[in-house]
């Protein structure tokens, strides 16, 4: 992206201007490079520990020349940690299904139907997407405890609902951009609302729906507070809590923490790349609601 910006500024400038500018950019570019590299070091150094520590037999908190081993990755997946990762997959998948399922239906209705108070309702939903999830834990804990729901599935549904407002917005924007001709034609052919939704809207709005699904998945994947409070059973806890107990344990195995963190972070990074490659957008707010 930076390349294209540069081209725009440089290439399209008329030759006269270019001659005049020549003295300035050389030193300017060098300075820009140096500052950028310094900022790059700030971004690089913490990550470096993660990579080096994960393959080091004697890892500590410091970066050192590693004694190469892959044992950390093997060990990191034992002791129920693989189970924790699997729990994360289940929780995040349920969250993604809940928010895109309910989100798609609502978004279609908001986009195409006449709904009284539509503007205020949409504003209210937008507002809900900005409320920090931390405030939900006391009331939801109380509600879940009363109905004996302090377990994985209700927690996953809650996580899905926290992404729902943003999912509705994302999908509605995509549906708004779909021309209505197809639906009108389908309507002539006596297709019902759900037929239209399934055969026309969902396929055409797939980029938006997929973005919303990935957003919800990532959001649930990263959440720490909600599962630690709302899932009572230790063996149903997702990966973030496993990392937390790694840090808190009596003998800290640094290499395993690093290895497990890498395994745990991979899906999110992979999803981001899938997203930016194939769907070209709508995902730049993916971090929007972190808890």
């Amino acid at each position, binding site marked *: 992206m930076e390349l294209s910006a540069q081209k725009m500024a440089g290439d399209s400038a008329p030759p006269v201007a270019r001659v*005049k500018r020549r003295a300035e950019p050389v030193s300017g570019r060098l300075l820009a490079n140096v500052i950028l590299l310094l900022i*790059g070091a700030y971004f690089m150094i913490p990550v470096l520990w993660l990579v080096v520590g994960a393959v080091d037999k004697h890892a500590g*908190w410091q970066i050192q020349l590693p004694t190469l081993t892959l044992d950390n990755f093997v060990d990191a997946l034992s002791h129920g940690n693989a189970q924790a990762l699997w729990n994360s997959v289940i929780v995040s998948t349920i969250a993604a299904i809940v928010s895109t399922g309910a989100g798609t239906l609502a978004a279609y209705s908001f986009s195409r*139907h006449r709904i009284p108070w539509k503007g205020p309702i949409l504003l209210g939903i937008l507002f809900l997407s900005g409320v920090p999830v*931390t405030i939900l834990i006391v009331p939801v804990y109380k509600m879940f405890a009363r109905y004996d729901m302090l377990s994985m599935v209700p927690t996953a549904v809650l996580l899905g609902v926290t992404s729902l407002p943003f999912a509705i917005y994302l999908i509605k924007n995509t549906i708004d951009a779909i021309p209505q001709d197809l639906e*009108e034609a389908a309507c002539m052919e006596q297709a019902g609302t759900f037929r239209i939704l399934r055969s026309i809207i969902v396929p055409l709005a797939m980029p938006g729906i997929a973005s919303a699904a990935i957003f919800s998945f990532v959001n649930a994947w990263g959440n720490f507070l909600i599962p630690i409070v709302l899932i009572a059973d230790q063996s149903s806890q997702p990966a973030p809590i496993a990392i937390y107990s790694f840090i808190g344990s009596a003998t800290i195995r640094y290499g395993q923490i690093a290895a497990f963190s890498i395994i745990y972070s991979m899906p999110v990074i992979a999803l981001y790349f899938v997203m930016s490659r194939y769907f070209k*957008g709508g995902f730049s*707010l993916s971090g929007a609601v972190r808890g």
Partner: protein
Amino acid sequence: MNQTTFRPVSLVLLAPAAILLLSLLALPIVYAIYLGFTNLQLIGPHAVNYWFTGLENVRQLLSDDVFTSSLWQTVVFVVGSGAFGATVLGLALALLMQKASGVVGKAVSGLAILAWNLPPITIAVIWYAATTSGGTFPRILGDTNHDLLYTYPMLVVSIANVWSLAGLSMIMFSAALRSIPTEMVEAAILENASATQRLFRLTLPMLKPTILMSALLMTLLTFANFTLVYLMTGGGPDNQTNILPIYSYLQGFKFHRLGYSALLGNVIVLLSSALGLAFVLIARQYRPGQVRKNKLKAMSA
């Protein structure tokens, strides 16, 4: 298809989202407002038999020194590292990338985007590793056994928060910079405007809407960033990083005072509502279409 009358099928389509949002988002917020004025406990005599205590919790809140300092820390953390820090670094990155050579720019922006995409837990772990005694940053600074996280907790968590958010801000600014018409830049160059003049007279004024959007978004995201601070410091040492979300959690699930915890949550709702309102107002005021397009474009180039 745009109907002129309300049809029952709309109700069916809206029902799942409405039920979920009302029961798991709106109702809990309202319920929390009520719980904030009760003596509910996690365990103990008032765990089951609790009642409305009027303004008793509010009276405690106002005389609670920890709350006062917590509120102050929240403002410092949210405004300092969110609204200001992450936005300034994101803007600097986007501007520098225009000037610097392509490879450097690509590499650094890739790192920033990676940092923004990492899950909060991972960010907390690597920043803990980097700043605790024996970690990388103490080594670079020359005193290996110096525990930076213990000595300057607020500064360290703020820097970690900036680290985790600057990538998003950078994406927003890169998109906005690309939408500045080339003719304007060329005209400024023909007029012999210096680089500094172009920055302050042309680029920054053009970026004003994005600066505001970024500052507000970063504020909201920082507000929600409970995990990072909680894992790195747990609110300590000596309550020095005890921002409101953490204080609320500790009161509820460590000191078992759920009622008081809910009241602290209410304070958070008030603060974030004010922010959210500002967010909505600004988003509407500044050409919402363009902002949205920028967001969509952000990844495509």
